[in-house]
């Protein structure tokens, strides 16, 4: 009696058999994941920025010499710090600073145009978003050149804080030309803020140079910029450390 031989195991099939197929799969993965990351950055960065900077970036008559250049880099360094660490540590990609701020910039322009201009009727010259992309570039370039988080925090973080005002000055300067209204000197930005009615944003809500440290005479902007730079060194290191915690493989082990 001949016995049936045991069935041979079915040959293992894989979707990727050649290097060309593998390359195609990797490209498909990129095509899926990169747009998702861009959307994610647009969403979380614009939400985070709206909460922490908000009116300082919404209105041209809020960008004073003391608070706007101090508050902005502290809020702006968060995503470049965290994702800068993650992308460098895991992929050796120095793009987080530029990419996150590009996403923020794009989302801000869409929001200002649709919400502030088309829906709420404010003229675009009153609500244009500031530009910060150069700060992301500096951060990424220093990370690549130094290959050190310490140095990136030290120099990248410092320049991030230092350069907010000079970077935006070409956009902002026309709005700080003086005008006169009913015997009061204003800037063009103040005039826009007064004439274009904002029912829920009275004049006193703006925080215009409310602070001490007046002993340096006219040097309000450089003093704030340097102070913001130093503060932002610590801030950048802190958020990179958060990125380091997030990059630990313990998290991956927990979800797999």
């Amino acid at each position, binding site marked *: 009696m001949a016995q049936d031989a045991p069935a041979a195991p079915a040959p293992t099939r894989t979707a990727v058999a050649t290097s060309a197929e593998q390359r195609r799969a990797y490209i498909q993965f990129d095509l899926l994941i990169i747009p998702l990351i861009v959307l994610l950055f647009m969403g979380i960065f614009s939400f985070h920025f709206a909460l922490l900077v908000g009116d300082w970036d919404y209105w041209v008559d809020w960008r004073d010499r003391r608070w706007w250049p101090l508050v902005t880099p502290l809020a702006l360094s968060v995503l470049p710090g965290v994702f800068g660490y993650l992308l460098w540590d895991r992929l050796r990609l120095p793009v987080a600073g530029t990419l996150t701020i590009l996403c923020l910039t794009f989302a801000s322009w869409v929001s200002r145009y649709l919400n502030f201009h088309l829906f709420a009727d404010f003229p675009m010259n009153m609500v244009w978003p500031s530009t910060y992309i150069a700060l992301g*570039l500096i951060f990424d370039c220093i990370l690549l050149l130094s290959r050190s988080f310490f140095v990136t925090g030290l120099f990248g973080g410092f320049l991030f804080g230092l350069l907010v005002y000079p970077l935006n000055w070409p956009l902002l300067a026309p709005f700080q030309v003086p005008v006169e209204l009913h015997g009061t000197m204003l800037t063009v930005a103040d005039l826009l803020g*007064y004439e274009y009615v904002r029912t829920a944003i*009275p004049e006193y809500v703006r925080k215009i140079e409310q602070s001490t440290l007046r002993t340096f005479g006219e040097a309000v902007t450089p003093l704030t910029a340097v102070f913001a730079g130093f503060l932002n060194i610590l801030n950048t290191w802190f958020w990179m450390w958060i990125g380091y915690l997030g990059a630990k493989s313990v998290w991956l082990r927990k979800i797999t």
Partner: protein
Amino acid sequence: MIDAAGTPTAAKLRSRRERLRRRTLRMLALFYVLMLLPLVADAHGERAQMPQLRMSTVHWFDIEVSTTRLDVNDEIVVKGSFMPSRFWPEHVESIEGTAFLNIGVPGPSFVRLDSRVNGVPMIRSTRFMRGELYHFEMRLKARKPGRYHVHPLINVKGTGPIIGPGRWVEVGGNAADFRLEATTLLGQKIDLEHYGFANAAWWSLFWFVFGLSWFVYWLLECPIVIPRFKRRDELGVDADQMITKADRRFAFIYLTLTLSFIVGGYQYAQASYPITTPLQTGRVNVPPAERPAPTVKVEMVEARYRIPGRSFRIELKVTNSGNSAVTVGELAAGNLRFVNAAVSKVVPADEDDLVAADSLRVENGPVQPSETRNIVIYADDAMWETQRMTTMIKSPDANVAAMLFFYGADGERHIVEIGGPMIPVFG
């Protein structure tokens, strides 16, 4: 359509999926239609503010608009008077701290050309003293066609907007025709609707393209995510080998260019706009309006609000030191006006003017010259209910305040504020 094992057939499943798909599409369509419907905001939530806040903060009166129909670019004047209450609630930050005269309109449907209180420009914030009289005037220019409920309002720091009576104003014409110009102190005439935007947009676009090119440089080696992840894992501590010499050169060029553009842009802006000033702020002082010495003095003896009858009964002790008999013509509380038709004829300005033209009864009046007498007034009207004033019993201090307008036999008007505790009557 069910097979022997009791599972739905493929056709049945397809049909279910089709129904689900159609239902989802219908819901989405409904959602978008609702989102896109041009919903009109009829008012500014006056009724939502708690009654005590409306009654005991700012008394607005004599509100007028110069016109109720105008076209884009036409001007309108909103004027009137207000008196911050002497009975301002202790639990709310005072108007004697920081305040700003504003206008309640939906966004910049109008632009504000001028605003003054007692003749002082109200470009900046100020403070107003309780119990004093202020006259305001705002000159607006119509910017967007539409029908708007225009209110004067005062923003009080720590308290929020205290809104005055509204008037409906209809704006016709074409928004595209709107023009607003200014002349800088350097003599340059500028169009405020567009000034500086092209420059800001150009710089923003420049930096966007420049930043995007950095990102594209790294994308060019696509695929990047998995290959770099694997390579990084393989190299371990030597992962920096993944950065090529070309990358470093590229980064150095980009860093140099970025810093150069920032410095160059700054220098260019300094050269283009050599004269600038920082943003301006500060406070202005507004002296109260001068008033003759009052000849009518009033003390509120008792105030009871009867909830079922929507009736406010107020007993007053009135001293008249003037030369003619006086009687109460109007009680104004929280922007509601209760008028004694026997003394004063008031015609509502529009359908939402909160005037009860014959709702005030006066017992034991008028008060003769040199006489002190207790009188009782009754303000009875459904407006207490419809304007959500009945929730005054839920206030943390149970105090009320109102303005009384006395009229003399000689036609003179005497304005007096009353205030004090209020007792609700539930039965």
